[in-house]
């Protein structure tokens, strides 16, 4: 399954993202934001867990995420300067990688399901299971990115460096899940992993649905623009907007217009 997904993701559509500096810039910004959010959550988690060994791992993990955020951000700014890109506030990822916000409010990020303060809502075991599944996916995702950036050694080097950390993250979370299994919490671990994987799949399904509908809607509107809107466009160009001070024309009301 993973191989199939990897192949699917390695399609020309994704390659194109890394060959377009503007799309690459946006995607790197989005990755940076995601890593920083993850780091914040992990720092909080590190303070909450009772096991000192797990705390140590989470603290290192949090530092890794912040380091990744800085690496992505720095590379994004290098690209922005190199190609004189116009940056603006809402740096959403390029569509093929818009894993975070199919629609604002889904509260799923690029790893799939972090949200600020997640540890406060889940227990240690559920949190680590969620983290494990997320890191497995992140490792897979960054392997794909690395393979798509051969033409850009600086960006590729970042993915390679991050991959080393991701493998460690997968390994230590697995160690703790195994430890809990051996302590007789096999069922809890299985359920937590299942919940984590289901929520990721559900999120992916929702995003796919939204994106498909979005793509179709946009195509329809584009066609609409060059057919039905065209005459109205010419008419609208003849009308000059009001300039200077004008007297308010609408009476006070609490309706939508």
């Amino acid at each position, binding site marked *: 399954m993973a191989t199939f997904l990897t192949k699917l993701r390695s399609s020309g559509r994704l390659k194109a993202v890394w060959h377009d500096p503007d799309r690459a810039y946006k995607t790197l910004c989005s990755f940076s*934001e995601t890593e*920083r*959010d993850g780091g*914040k959550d992990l*720092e*909080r988690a590190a*303070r909450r867990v009772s096991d000192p060994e797990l705390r140590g791992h989470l603290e290192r993990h949090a530092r890794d995420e912040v380091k990744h955020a800085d690496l992505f951000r720095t590379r994004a*700014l290098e690209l*922005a*300067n190199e190609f*004189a*890109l*116009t*940056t*603006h*506030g809402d740096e959403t990822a390029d569509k093929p990688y818009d894993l975070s916000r199919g*629609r*604002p*409010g889904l509260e799923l990020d690029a790893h799939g399901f972090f949200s*600020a*303060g997640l540890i406060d809502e889940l227990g240690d075991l559920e949190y680590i299971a969620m983290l494990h599944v997320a890191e497995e996916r992140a490792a897979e995702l960054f392997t794909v990115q690395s393979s798509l950036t051969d033409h850009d050694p600086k960006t590729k080097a970042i993915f390679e460096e991050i991959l080393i950390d991701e493998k460690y993250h997968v390994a230590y979370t697995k160690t703790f899940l195994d430890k809990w299994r051996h302590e007789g919490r096999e069922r809890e671990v299985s359920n937590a992993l299942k919940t984590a994987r289901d929520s990721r799949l559900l999120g992916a399904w929702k995003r796919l649905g939204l994106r498909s509908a*979005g793509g179709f*809607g*946009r*195509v329809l*509107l*584009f066609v609409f*623009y*060059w057919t039905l*809107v*065209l005459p*109205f*466009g*010419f*008419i*609208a*160009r003849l*009308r000059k*907007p*009001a*300039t*200077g*001070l*004008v*007297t*308010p024309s*609408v009476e*006070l009301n*609490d*309706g*939508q*217009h």
Partner: protein
Amino acid sequence: MRILGISAFHRDSAAALLVDGVPVAAAQEEHFTGKLGEWSFPRRAIRSCLDEAGVQARDLDRIVFYEKPLRKFERILAMQLGAFPRSAKTFSSSMFLWLGDRLWMKNRIIEELEVPDERISFVEHQRAHAAASYFTSPFEEAAILSIDDMGEWATTLLARGAGNEIESLREVHFPHSLGLWYSAFAQYLGFEPGADEGLLEELAKQGTPSSLDKVRQTLSACGEEGGFQVHSEHFRFQHDASRLYSQGLIDLLGPARAPGSPIAEGPEDTRCCDLAASVQAVLEERVLALAEELHRHVPSSKLCLSGEVARNRSLVRHLRTDGPFEQIYLPPSPGEPGAALGAALEYSCSIAGEPRAFTQEVAAIGGKLAASPEDGAVSLSKAEIPTLIAARLAKGEHVAWVRGGVELGDRSWSARLLLARADKEDALGGLLETVQNRVPCAPCRVAVPAARLKDHFEVPDGVEHALRFAHLELKPLEGQAQLSKLAAADGRVWVQAIDQRYDPQLCQVLESMGAEGGLPIAAMTDFHLRGRPLVRSEADAVEAFQRSRLDALFVEERLYERKA
């Protein structure tokens, strides 16, 4: 009557709850999500407001959104059509967004809050801004000026406030927007539009306005006295919010500054500083003309100012010193987050006819700190905290202080503070560096007891309200060499007057510093990390403290110290 005001989907979404005309809770979404400028539907902020007041959504009498979606859609559609065929790229994305989501705001609110649709109301965006200023002011009558970037059609509103009513007198309509015009120049100069306009203002202080004629070609007077128009050939914000300026502006002024590039001292930076100074000067010209016109319609001595552009401190100073009004009031948050409160007040006073029952004396509205002791906390008594803070400041330490609920907006006036001694070398820059790495031009302010202000600064009359919420910069008196070191390139210091009545603890800190032979003045800024919103909870504060180079953190009655 319980009224919930909501602002969302532009920037800085927020919620505010009014009970019988008095705001009891207000919260901003970014403080919960940790994402600076969060604009999504403020469900966590709403939940926080309702929880704090002990109210269920079904108990709300009215939910008021801060703009009218149908009228805004009409404007967006008209602008997209008017820009045909240049809007080919943006039409489908903006229409998709509006037809798929924004237009159905009423349904969204019903879905989120599970309230019947007859309880949902919409008020005009500029009137929400105007209400946020006038209905929180201490004035019984005043002229009102809201200068913003966008809303439905109106971008600027001239109005009269009298008792319980706001009367709209004149408007300026999109695309003629001072806010977007200024943001476009911010973007041209490499800053982030909608976020870093303050940096453009700071850059302006370092230049001379040598490009006035060229900048006036982009914004000129027109029609009735005070009216203005933005010349569309230089801008793209009419139909595209991602890049606000066009090739026309580059042809007029030369190449744009690369985004994020450092500001050094070279010929290119001189050009940028001079251009910024020219933009600031032209903005002030236009706003002074608007104020003169407003004063002709409303010959009051008092002005209530609001909208995103009102955050420009140099502009506020010019309005007071060169404009026709003797007293100026600005709410703590004159921009988008404050408009959530404004929407609720506009409905309560103007539409429901409820009497005014509120004057904003402190910035925070309700709000308790989400507090739970973290590792390493040391308990203190409330009484000893000011003395302890003053002692640490006297030793040259950088201290964070967290008290009560967080305020609306991106600044904190008392609840989330970072403090340092003001007479230290590079006090302001050093303070910023402890938490945010230094951003070139990033401003920092000083806290001064209101009663001592005239001992140290030239204070014009009629600005006490503006100074309480740090909307002004003042010139130090002759001979105040230590204060001159804190001044920006224009010789002025950003000042917040601390009133003994409203913040006795901070006043005590400052007076203790003065009593020990130092200045009763502290360098002060807001407690957040770079690129992050203000810290909200005790956990957030401890986390930010650990990632900073601050020496100590005081949270309510607890102290956290940096481990060696």
